[in-house]
């Protein structure tokens, strides 16, 4: 009998997207006796207790967290429309960098948080220096919105930005000759966040 076990995990659930039916420790199912239901249940209990003692997430890496089909019993419409909003990965490109990165906008609290992430990813490509002097900043952060238009980062409130942002690009200012790129409101704060 395939016994389905769902384990509590801090932040593990969403990363593991493979749906499997099986015992949590990954042993082949054939080994378990069908008849000894009680014993197997208590084995799972034991496994569970061990987990409770080692509550740090590193220890849980040992046991793959198996997602169970149809558990928790939340209707699929609801699952799609509430739970999926906890992650929002978008691509970030920087002109001059050889490859792109991905960041989860949902994990950031605001524009200054985002600026810090950019610094982490692209500091070696000079973003810090590039944005140091706001007026003469060599790079400008822009994003593509739901309509496919490229917008300047920082004009709208953060929540609105997350909803509409599809991807980010850190553009060379020189590519935008003639446009008014005076940092306004949030964008100024964004740049200040980077250069602090």
């Amino acid at each position, binding site marked *: *009998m*395939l*016994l*389905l*076990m*769902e*384990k*509590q*995990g*801090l932040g*593990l*659930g*969403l990363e593991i997207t493979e749906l499997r039916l099986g015992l949590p420790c990954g042993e082949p199912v054939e080994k378990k006796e069908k008849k000894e*239901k*009680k014993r197997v*249940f208590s084995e*799972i*209990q034991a496994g*569970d207790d061990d987990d409770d003692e080692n509550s740090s997430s590193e220890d849980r890496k040992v046991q793959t967290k198996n997602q*169970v*089909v*149809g*558990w*928790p*019993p*939340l*209707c*699929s*419409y*609801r*699952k799609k*429309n*509430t*739970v999926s*909003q*906890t992650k929002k990965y978008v691509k970030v490109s920087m002109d001059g960098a050889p490859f792109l990165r991905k960041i989860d906008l949902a994990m950031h609290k605001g524009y200054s948080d985002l600026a810090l992430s950019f610094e982490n990813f692209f500091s070696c490509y000079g973003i810090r220096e590039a944005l140091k002097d706001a007026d003469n900043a060599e790079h400008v952060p822009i994003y593509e919105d739901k309509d496919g238009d490229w917008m300047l980062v920082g004009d*709208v*409130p953060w*929540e*609105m930005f997350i*909803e509409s942002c599809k991807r980010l690009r850190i553009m060379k200012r020189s590519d935008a000759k003639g446009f008014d790129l005076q940092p306004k409101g949030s964008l100024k704060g964004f740049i200040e966040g980077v250069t602090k």
Partner: protein
Amino acid sequence: MNYFPDEVIEHIFDYVVSHRDRNALSLVCKSWYRIERFTRQRVFIGNCYSITPERLIQRFPGLKSLTLKGKPHFADFSLVPYDWGGFLCPWIEALAKSRVGLEELRLKRMVVSDESLELLSRSFTHFKSLVLVSCEGFTTDGLAAIAANCRFLRELDLQENEVEDHKGQWLSCFPDSCTSLVSLNFACLKGEVSLGALERLVARSPNLKSLKLNRSVPLDALQRIMMRAPQLADLGIGSFVHDPDSEAYIRLKNTILKCKSITSLSGFLEVAPHCLAAIYPICPNLTSLNLSYAAGIQGSELIKLIRHCGKLQRLWIMDCIGDKGLGVVAMTCKDLQELRVFPSAPYGNPAAVTEKGLVAISMGCPKLHSLLYFCHQMTNAALITVAKNCPNFIRFRLCILEALKPDPDTLEPLDEGFGAIVQSCRRLRRLSLSGQLTDQVFLYIGMYAEQLEMLSIAFAGESDKGMLYVLNGCKKLRKLEIRDCPFGNMALLTDVGKYETMRSLWMSSCEVTVGACKLLAKKMPRLNVEIFNENEQEDCSLEDGQRVEKMYLYRTLAGKRKDAPEYVWTL
């Protein structure tokens, strides 16, 4: 038996409205059966495969309102394979062919095609009300047909359906002559609607009482709509995102002050938390609040909002409200009757709700009768306290997110806790169990849950005895759904007659075998016993000893259905 002429009896029957009472009337004698038949206007079919549409129409030619349910409940949790069934088409075709003057159609978990909607819209001149809940298979083209052709449409209510958006501006298809709308709910649609058309539609619908918008409707459009419909009682907000300093937001705040008739609020599908203060003025009037799709609202904002809602009777929220937040609900919402707490992350937010929140609610809200509660943990002591404080439960659905979890304080199963619930709540009709449970809980259920009609079980029990306690004890049981429990052939076959007194039985990942199902089907010809064989191999024959992964059986007068897909074997 008949001292009165038929007309008098008919008149008396007009006052008998509930389906159960009507069914009872029809059993009294032949002439009452005949009179009841011709005067029946509303029919409820809990399983669309239990009877053929032709037979229904033949018995009730005066049918005006039909409710149909299709797929089994566990289809909601992806346990029923795609294409299983529940098609609306044959019903609409049969109704269209007959002379039934259909006015109202309510569907749940059915597969609805655009063609069916088109046929529906053209076949019944006085069609007034379409309610679709958890349905699929249609697009906005089907909705366009309804909008365009149903001249006297009063209600179009779409709840949690999967609808494909064809960007055809369906809402613009309501003709200028359509002024009869009372209820419009398109919150589940993903695409944009013409805002101009929407505003004009609202402006020419003086009877509009309920309006639920989707995410695409921005805050400024909401404000204009609310201006045109101050009589609204039930509002579902789409997008609630705006700069608090903007003109639009200030206008909205002023408009809201004028909407004193709103008693039910929902939506907030897109929300910027700092905008919520705008709705505080209407909170004291609210009897119903559904924030279960408002993922953007943090716990602290939820709590601030709730403090203004002293009259709430129904509350649907997400678990980010926390135990403390539920304490605030308990203090503020003394009239609370129904509470649903949904998980905000797939395996729960660790800072979310536990048994403490539920106990607080039970202490503060004695009128509570319906509960759906997703939580991290539950204790027997808490359930016993809840049972004592709230003896009026009709629906009690508890989902402890971690399957098989025992009482964390005592490490014991939750048998005693649920036992207390069924013993105390004599009017309990629906129960969903979770956590670690032995056969004992089923003994309690069989002994005490005399009014129980629907029971949902997962990862529970130890032996066939568990299931037998329930089948023997719960005389009013109508629906039993079981997954991942060690119940097998003996439990299934001990009382085969029981299943004709029930609507349906679902068993998946249990211990029943093909042979037992075949035997059951043979003994009970008026049951359809369906086995789902989702194995890819074409030539696999079902051997008697093989374990059945999924079985769904239901009583029926229609015989084996002809629309079952290949993987469904009706034995």
